[in-house]
C-alpha cells in the first residue's frame, strides 16, 4: 500500500535524521591517549586522585577482562569493536575555580541551553565549581522549590557538578560523583562497590570496572526518606570516546530513594561505546526506585553511527522486605544490550521491572530483566512494552528463576509488542526456572500491530494522523508511564510521540 512507503519515508525524516540532541560541542578537552593498557588505567586513576586500593581493583579487573571474550548471544549485530581506537578518558578542561558564569567555557553553557536546562540550573551545572557551590545552592533554592530535583551532570568522563548537596546532607543523604565518593567516603565504596556486579561479572562489566571514569554515588542512611528526586544527566560529547559510568546507590534499613537518569549524545558517523554499570543495594525495609529515560543518538537513516549501549544494571534486595523497582524508557542508541535485574535475596523482598523500548530506523534492542528469587515469599513483576518501527529489531529477553530454598516465590510477567509497519521485528525470549515446587510464575505475551482499523477509527473522530498514532501508542504504554516520577512522565510521553510521528503503515 502506498501508505506504507509514505510512512517509512516519514519515519526516516522525523525520527532518525532529526535527532534533537544531535549537536556537538567544541570544548577544550583533557584526554588520555587512545586505546587501553595498564598505563591508561593508571592515568585515569591518577587523574582522579584515587587511593591505591582503587587502582589495584581496576588493574585486577583489566587483567581479567583480557581473558574474556565478547558475548555473542544477544540478538544484535555490529562490527567488532576496536578497543584500541577509543579514548577511555575525556574531561572538559576547567580553569581552576571559576567564580562566575563568565569564567565558564561558553560552549559548555550552550550545551545546557540546547538541552533545555533552565538558566539557573545551567549556572549550577556549568559549574562555578563545587568549591563554591554552597552559595549558589542558596540562591537557587527558591528556583528549585517547585521542581525538587537534585542533579548530577556527567559530561563524557567526569561529573561536572552536583546540585543540592547541602540540603541533602542535612537529611544525611550523600549524593555526589563516584570519584568524589572514592576520595571522601572510601569505607562505603569499599564495602559496596562490586558487591552486586562483581568485577568478574561479564565482559562489559569487567571492562567498566577497569576503566570507569565517573558516575553517581548515593547513600541514604537508615530510616531516611530522601527528600527529593535525585537525577543524573549523562552526555557523551567527545568523538571516539567511550563513556563508562559507574553508579552505586545504597539505601540502608528503612530508607527510600527515587533516582532518575537521563542520557543524550551528539550525532556522529562513528559509533560510540557506552558501557555502564549500575549497582543498587537495598537493606531491610528499604526501597529504591530507579528510572531511566535513555535517548542516546540512534544512528542515521542508513543505520550509520549511533551509540552502542552495553549496560549492566543490577539491584540487590539484600534485606528482608526490601523493594527495588526499575522503570526504563528506551528510545535511543543504535544497539541496546541491557537487562536491569533484581536479586531477591531478603525474605519478603520484591522486584519490579517496567520497560518501554521504542526502536525505529535500524536500531537493535535486546533488553529485558532478570528476577532471581533466593529468599522466601519473594515476588516480582515484569511489564515490558516493546514498540518496533522502521527496520528495527526489538527483543525482550527475560529470566525468572526460583532457588530451591525460595519458597512461595511469585512472578508475573507481561510482555506486549507493538509493530508499526512491516519491515521491523519483535521477539520475546523468556527463560523461566523454578527449583522450588511452591513457585508461582505467570507469563503473558502479546504481539500486535497498530491496525488500519484503529487508526481509521480514531481519525474519524477528527484526530489528525500523528495525534492518532501518539494516542494509541501512549495508551499501549500507559501501565509503564504511570510508574515514572510525575515530572518525567510527561517528558517520556512526548519523547515516544516524537520517536514515532507518522510511523503507521
Amino acid at each position, binding site marked *: 500500500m502506498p501508505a506504507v512507503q509514505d510512512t517509512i519515508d516519514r519515519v526516516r525524516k522525523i525520527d532518525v535524521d532529526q535527532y534533537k540532541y544531535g549537536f556537538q560541542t567544541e570544548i577544550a578537552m583533557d584526554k588520555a591517549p587512545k586505546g587501553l593498557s595498564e598505563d591508561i588505567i593508571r592515568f585515569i586513576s591518577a587523574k582522579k586522585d584515587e587511593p591505591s586500593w582503587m587502582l589495584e581493583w581496576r588493574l585486577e579487573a583489566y587483567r581479567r577482562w583480557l581473558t574474556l571474550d565478547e558475548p555473542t548471544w544477544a540478538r544484535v549485530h555490529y562490527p567488532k569493536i576496536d578497543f584500541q581506537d577509543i579514548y577511555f578518558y575525556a574531561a572538559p578542561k576547567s580553569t581552576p575555580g571559576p567564580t562566575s558564569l563568565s569564567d565558564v567555557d561558553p560552549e559548555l553553557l550552550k550545551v545546557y541551553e540546547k538541552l533545555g536546562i533552565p538558566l539557573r540550573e545551567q549556572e549550577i551545572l556549568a559549574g562555578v565549581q563545587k568549591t563554591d557551590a554552597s552559595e549558589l545552592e542558596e540562591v537557587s533554592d527558591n528556583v528549585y522549590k517547585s521542581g525538587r530535583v537534585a542533579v548530577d551532570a556527567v559530561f563524557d568522563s567526569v561529573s561536572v557538578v552536583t546540585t543540592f548537596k547541602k540540603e541533602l546532607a542535612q537529611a544525611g543523604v550523600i549524593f555526589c560523583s563516584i570519584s568524589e565518593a572514592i576520595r571522601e567516603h572510601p569505607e562505603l565504596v569499599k564495602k559496596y562497590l562490586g558487591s552486586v556486579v562483581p568485577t568478574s561479572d561479564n565482559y562489559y562489566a569487567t571492562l567498566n570496572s577497569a576503566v570507569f571514569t565517573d558516575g553517581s554515588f548515593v547513600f541514604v542512611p537508615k530510616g531516611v526518606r530522601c527528600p527529593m528526586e535525585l537525577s543524573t544527566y549523562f552526555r557523551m560529547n567527545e568523538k571516539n570516546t567511550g563513556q563508562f559510568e559507574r553508579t552505586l546507590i545504597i539505601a540502608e534499613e528503612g530508607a527510600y530513594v527515587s533516582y532518575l537518569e537521563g542520557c543524550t549524545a551528539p550525532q556522529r558517523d562513528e559509533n560510540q561505546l557506552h558501557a555502564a554499570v549500575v549497582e543498587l543495594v537495598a537493606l531491610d525495609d528499604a526501597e529504591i526506585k530507579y528510572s531511566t529515560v535513555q535517548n542516546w543518538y540512534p544512528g542515521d537513516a542508513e543505520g550509520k553511527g549511533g551509540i552502542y549501549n552495553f549496560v549492566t544494571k543490577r539491584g540487590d534486595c539484600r534485606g528482608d522486605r526490601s523493594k527495588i523497582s526499575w522503570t526504563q524508557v528506551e528510545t535511543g542508541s543504535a544497539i541496546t544490550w541491557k537487562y536491569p535485574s533484581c536479586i531477591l535475596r531478603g525474605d519478603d523482598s520484591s522486584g519490579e521491572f517496567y520497560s518501554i523500548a521504542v526502536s525505529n530506523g535500524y536500531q537493535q534492542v535486546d533488553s529485558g530483566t532478570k528476577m532471581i528469587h533466593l529468599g522466601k515469599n519473594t515476588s516480582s513483576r515484569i511489564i515490558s512494552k516493546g514498540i518496533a518501527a522502521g527496520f528495527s529489531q526489538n527483543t525482550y529477553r527475560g529470566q525468572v528463576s526460583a532457588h530451591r530454598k525460595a519458597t512461595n516465590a511469585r512472578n508475573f510477567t507481561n510482555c506486549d509488542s507493538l509493530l508499526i509497519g512491516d519491515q521491523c521485528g519483535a521477539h520475546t525470549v523468556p527463560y523461566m526456572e523454578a527449583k522450588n515446587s511452591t513457585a508461582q510464575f505467570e507469563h503473558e505475551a502479546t504481539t500486535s500491530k497498530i491496525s488500519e482499523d484503529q487508526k481509521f477509527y480514531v481519525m*474519524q473522530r477528527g484526530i489528525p494522523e500523528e495525534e492518532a498514532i501518539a*494516542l494509541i501508542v501512549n495508551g499501549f504504554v500507559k501501565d509503564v508511564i504511570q510508574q515514572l516520577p510525575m515530572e518525567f512522565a510527561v517528558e517520556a510521553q512526548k519523547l515516544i510521540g516524537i520517536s514515532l510521528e507518522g510511523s503507521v503503515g
Partner: protein
Amino acid sequence: MLEIRNLHARIVDDGTEIIRGLNLTVKAGEVAAIMGPNGSGKSTLSYILAGREDYEVTEGDILYNGQSILEMDPAERATSGIFLAFQYPMEIPGVATMEFLKVAMNEQRKARGEEPLKIPEFLKRVKEAAASLSMDMAMLKRPLNVGFSGGEKKRAEILQMKLLEPKLCVLDETDSGLDIDALKIVSDGVNALRAPDRAFLVITHYQRLLEHIVPDSVHVLYRGQVIKSGDKSLALDLEANGYAGVIGEAA
C-alpha cells in the same frame, strides 16, 4: 447536503469493484435509510464516505455541501462534520473514554479555530449527554470500548456523535447486537439529534430500526448501485416480501 454521483470504487489490495455507479442525494434535515442484502456494498459506502484508505474511488464524485471530499483524509472529513457510527467500534486500550472524548472534541475545535473547552464545561456536556443515553459515568473512565458489551459500544458511538455535533451522520448497522431496550435508547438518542441542518444516512438490514428512527426516504442498494428509492413504505414492503422482488424488477 450530500450528493453522490456515479460513484465507482474498488478495494485497493485486490482491485475488486464494490461500488458500481452509485447515485444518491440526501438533503439537509433528511433521514435517508440505506437497505440491502448482505454484500451489496452498504458498509463499504459508509467507509468510503468517511475516507478509509483501503478503498479507491475510480470514477464519479462525492459532494458534501457542494464540495468534493475525495481528497480529504478521514480526520479532515470528520472536522468538516461527517460522522460515522461504526458497526464494530474499535477498542483503544489504555485510553480512557473520557480522555478520548476530550482529545476528539478539542481537535475538532482546533480545526475550526476555536479554543479548547474548559474542563468544567467539558464535564458538564459529557455528563448531560451520558445521562440522556442512560450511561454510567464510571464507564467513561474505562478504556474506550475495551470490554464494553455490544450495547455499550453502540451507546458510546451515539455519545460521541452527540458531543461532536456533526452535520452528516452515517450510522452503519447501529441496530446490530442491540436488545430492544438498548435499541430504544439508541434510537431516542438519534431522534433527539434530528435537526433542519443535519442529515442522517441510516444503514440497516432490518425494518425494525426504522420503526424507531422513521426515515424520510429509503434506498435499496444492490451490487453497488441504488436500484430503488421510495418513502418509508418501501421498507415495510421489503420486510413483507424480501429483496427478491425489488432485485427482480431492477434486473
